[in-house]
């Protein structure tokens, strides 16, 4: 131990007295400053993006580490000190002393970088400062972690390959391999492996997801630990290869055992590697093919069933949800109890009053066999699976929308549809008809929020028509009587959007002659993984959700999103979503009154450009143009008539639009 301590002290002393290290720290400071210049000085603060876009620091750290590793390996040889040290006890532990010292140097660099980032964030005034632990972990994983691993790899290269020019070539190859640019090797190395061995961000051009937060999931931390151990394992292997006889049998056995353990750990870590959430589009395929063939009775969606209470105990495993839901139904005489549950969630068992019950699964629907005349109906579901693109589950976040049947909802609801105007599935607002009593407990270390009341650590209780659970980089705030759950630096823009959204609600309500919807008490940011986002806003009675990718006020308060959230998807409807699309266009045109509106553009399409996808819209737009007058009254009248019609009769076909225009034009309406 004294020897190891002496080696570490000497290494640290030489680091301390080496002016290059101070130069590196200075360079790092300037380098981090580039991030500050680009992301924190402009009108908007993008602290998370600054860190996520810091791959240039990660790559510089890797390259520096590799060269540093070579320098560390030959530091004694360079000054002809190696021969004496080889003749002294403790020569075999020197590499470990060097690694520990290298780790200490890395921690110091980590600390300096961390403090600098905090200072920059402090100057910029970002709320990201509330997530100091996340910042520290990010810097430790992506900056100093990469530096540390690269240093050991550089050491390994120097130990195994003694030819200088080979070393330089190898350093550059290894550098590319462990960097985000390792995609260059995609023709010879599987992508999964390339993603895993990349010590930086996997998608360097990806926008920062401020709901998800920084990519510091446990698997990312585990990966850097596994990598460090593997690099040490390589180094030890190289040393054993070079100086096999210097090690006694016990030492050799210890090293071989450690190497095997490391490799096992590495394989486990690889198996649990982090996978960023990418829109799967599976729902689009599912709802365009399968659902059409399944019967559902839209006349009586609830089938007379009423949920009185839910008791749900949830845990998360990898990217899946797992829970037991105890549902109490009000008394009924049905022998088959239908429920709606998203098809990605598998039901492994169902019990009624504690006894196993037969059930049949058909896509999003479950049919549970029951006995008639039961006094109580306590149904227990064992469920596990994923919740699709609308409610993504990642390693460090999840979003379970209150408008989405992530728990069994009594009745037969159509969860989503796929129209040919959109290549993504269009989700409906599925919720209970009447509020039920909910108790939900979540086994999760991260802070979880809900639209019902929190009664303990990740425990919630309350009455609602639909319960949502949210976990991500959210800051709870209370401003002007409203509760906000928003990522750092987003409060102001969302707060500013409230009066504009209110104004647009009034505008729409006035046109369609409907009561004004009040903006709920709670406003929460939600994730959105969509190329064509229709669900920018989700409205429920107790919460308004704003998508995290909406960065500007005009996009958040876009009248199309306001209409869809407050007047179309606010309730469960089976109406053709094309109606919704047309209403959006109409409101956009009426509000903006300019040539950029979609309705005007469709009207401008030449005959020869009309196809089956835009045929209806072009025809509708061209006809709508005849209703223009100075006050747009004709158009507003059309919208009002159609809204009432579709609300009354959800199965109204889209051709009715054209008929109604004709009727308005001829004065029949």
């Amino acid at each position: 131990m004294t020897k190891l301590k002496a080696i570490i002290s000497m290494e640290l002393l030489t680091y301390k007295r080496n002016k290059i290290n101070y130069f590196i720290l200075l360079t790092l400071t300037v380098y981090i400053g580039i991030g500050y210049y680009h992301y924190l000085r402009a009108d908007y603060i993008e602290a998370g993006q600054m860190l996520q876009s810091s791959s240039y620091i990660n790559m510089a750290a890797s390259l520096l580490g590799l060269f540093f590793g070579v320098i560390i390996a030959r530091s004694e040889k360079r000054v002809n000190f190696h021969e004496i040290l080889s003749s002294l006890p403790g020569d075999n532990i020197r590499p470990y002393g060097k690694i520990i010292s290298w780790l200490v140097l890395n921690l110091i660099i980590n600390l300096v970088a961390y403090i600098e980032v905090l200072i920059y964030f402090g100057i910029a005034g970002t709320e990201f400062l509330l997530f100091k632990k996340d910042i520290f972990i990010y810097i430790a994983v992506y900056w100093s972690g990469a530096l540390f691993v690269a240093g050991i790899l550089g050491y390994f290269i120097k130990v195994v390959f003694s030819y200088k020019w080979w070393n330089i070539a190898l350093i550059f190859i290894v550098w590319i391999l462990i960097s985000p640019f390792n995609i260059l090797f995609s023709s010879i190395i599987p992508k999964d492996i390339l993603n895993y061995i990349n010590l930086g961000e996997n998608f360097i051009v990806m926008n920062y997801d401020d709901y998800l937060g920084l990519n510091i999931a446990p698997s990312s931390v585990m990966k850097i630990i596994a990598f460090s151990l593997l690099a040490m394992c390589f180094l030890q292997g190289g040393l054993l290869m070079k100086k096999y006889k210097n090690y006694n049998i016990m030492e050799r056995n210890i090293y071989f055992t450690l190497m095997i353990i490391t490799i096992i750990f590495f394989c486990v870590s690889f198996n649990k590697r982090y996978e960023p959430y990418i829109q799967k589009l599976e729902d689009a395929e599912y709802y365009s093919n399968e659902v059409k063939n399944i019967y559902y009775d839209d006349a009586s969606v609830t089938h007379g069933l009423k949920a009185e209470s839910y008791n749900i105990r949830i845990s998360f495993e990898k990217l899946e949800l797992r829970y037991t839901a105890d549902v109490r139904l009000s008394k009924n005489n049905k022998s088959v109890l239908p429920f709606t549950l998203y098809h990605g969630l598998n039901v492994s068992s169902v019990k009624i009053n504690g006894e196993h019950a037969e059930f049949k699964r058909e896509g999003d629907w479950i049919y549970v066999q029951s006995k008639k005349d039961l006094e109580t109906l306590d149904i227990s579901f064992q469920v596990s699976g994923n919740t699709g693109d609308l409610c993504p589950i990642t390693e460090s976040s999840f979003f379970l929308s209150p408008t989405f049947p992530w728990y069994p909802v009594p009745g037969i609801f159509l969860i989503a549809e796929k129209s040919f105007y959109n290549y993504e599935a269009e989700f409906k607002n599925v919720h209970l008809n009447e509020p039920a009593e909910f108790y939900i407990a979540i086994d999760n270390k991260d802070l979880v929020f809900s639209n019902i009341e929190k009664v303990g650590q990740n425990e919630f209780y309350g009455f609602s028509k639909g319960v949502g659970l949210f976990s991500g980089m959210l800051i709870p705030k209370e401003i002007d009587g409203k509760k906000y759950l928003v990522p750092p630096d987003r409060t102001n823009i969302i707060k500013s959007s409230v009066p504009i959204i209110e104004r647009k609600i009034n505008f729409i309500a006035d046109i369609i002659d409907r009561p004004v919807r009040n903006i709920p008490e709670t406003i929460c940011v939600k994730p959105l993984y969509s190329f064509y986002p229709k669900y920018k806003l989700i409205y429920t009675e107790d919460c308004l959700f704003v998508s995290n990718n909406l960065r500007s006020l005009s996009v958040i308060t876009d009248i199309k999103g306001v209409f869809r959230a407050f007047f179309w998807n606010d309730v469960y409807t089976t109406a053709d979503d094309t109606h919704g699309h047309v209403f959006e266009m109409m409101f956009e045109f009426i509000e903006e009154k300019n040539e950029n509106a979609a309705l005007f553009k469709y009207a401008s399409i030449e005959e020869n450009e009309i196809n089956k996808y835009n045929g209806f819209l072009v025809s509708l737009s061209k006809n709508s143009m005849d209703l223009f007058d100075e006050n747009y009254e004709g158009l507003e009248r059309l919208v009002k008539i159609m809204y009432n019609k579709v609300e009354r009769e959800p199965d109204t076909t889209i051709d009715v639009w054209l008929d109604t225009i004709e009727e308005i034009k001829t004065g029949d309406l």
Partner: protein
Amino acid sequence: MDNLVIRNIKKSFQNIRALNCINLDIERGVFGLLGENGAGKTTLMRIIATVLEPDEGEICFGDIVWCKHPDKVRQMIGYLPQEFGIFKNITSLECMEYIGYLKGIESKNNVREQAEQILKDVNLYEYKDRKVGTFSGGMKRRLGIAQALLNNPLIIIVDELTSGLDPEERIHFRNLLRILGKDHIVLLSTHIAADIEATCQALAVIRNGHAVQFNSLAELTDIAENKVWIWQVDTENYNKIDKKFKIISTKTLNNKIELRIISHIKPNHDALKAQPTVEEGYLVWNMEQKNIQY
């Protein structure tokens, strides 16, 4: 004190045989290894210092066998290699303390005490807080021998001690080695016979990877007995003699030059028989090995 016994040591580098069956039995005292450059001295020293492993053979000191107990060996040797350097930005005292800890001295006070004492012995104490990077070649060499003496090793291995030293320092070190030889086995490798003559009680001559042990210096000098001559000649005759005889040294005296000549016959009736030195003994031995006529 046990002897350092070297048995059948062989070592090759790729296809070149550096050491070929070396056998030595070394007693306490200063033992010299004499040989030409490239003869294998440094290879043997590095093997004894555990820096290299022999291909064959073994080295023992009492019960301690080199290949079986390398850590024990390392604790009882002090080694100064031919080329010695150290981190430039640490002080000589820091260097001594570092090596002291590596040699197994546990207590901080003990390390400091020993380091300071040895630095005094090698006249470096007043520079103990100076960075090694500012040291002259001689000072570095002194620091090198100082580190080898830490923890009072039983065997001290010094490779080319006096290379790069000025005459005064050379004398100082020779004296130091003589003192150390009283209680230690000191192995001194050199190609300078005068170093051996000044310090060693016994020696081995290495040539082409083979070693011949001489248990006293006299054994080597005796080889040159009756083969070394002193001859005073005129300056103009010097060139003729130089071509004819093996001249070892010359000394200018007024109008004449005094020559020391190796020759198995008396070179001239004016020549006088001289008492051979170790260097001359070595030269004669070497010429005989090479079958050179003299």
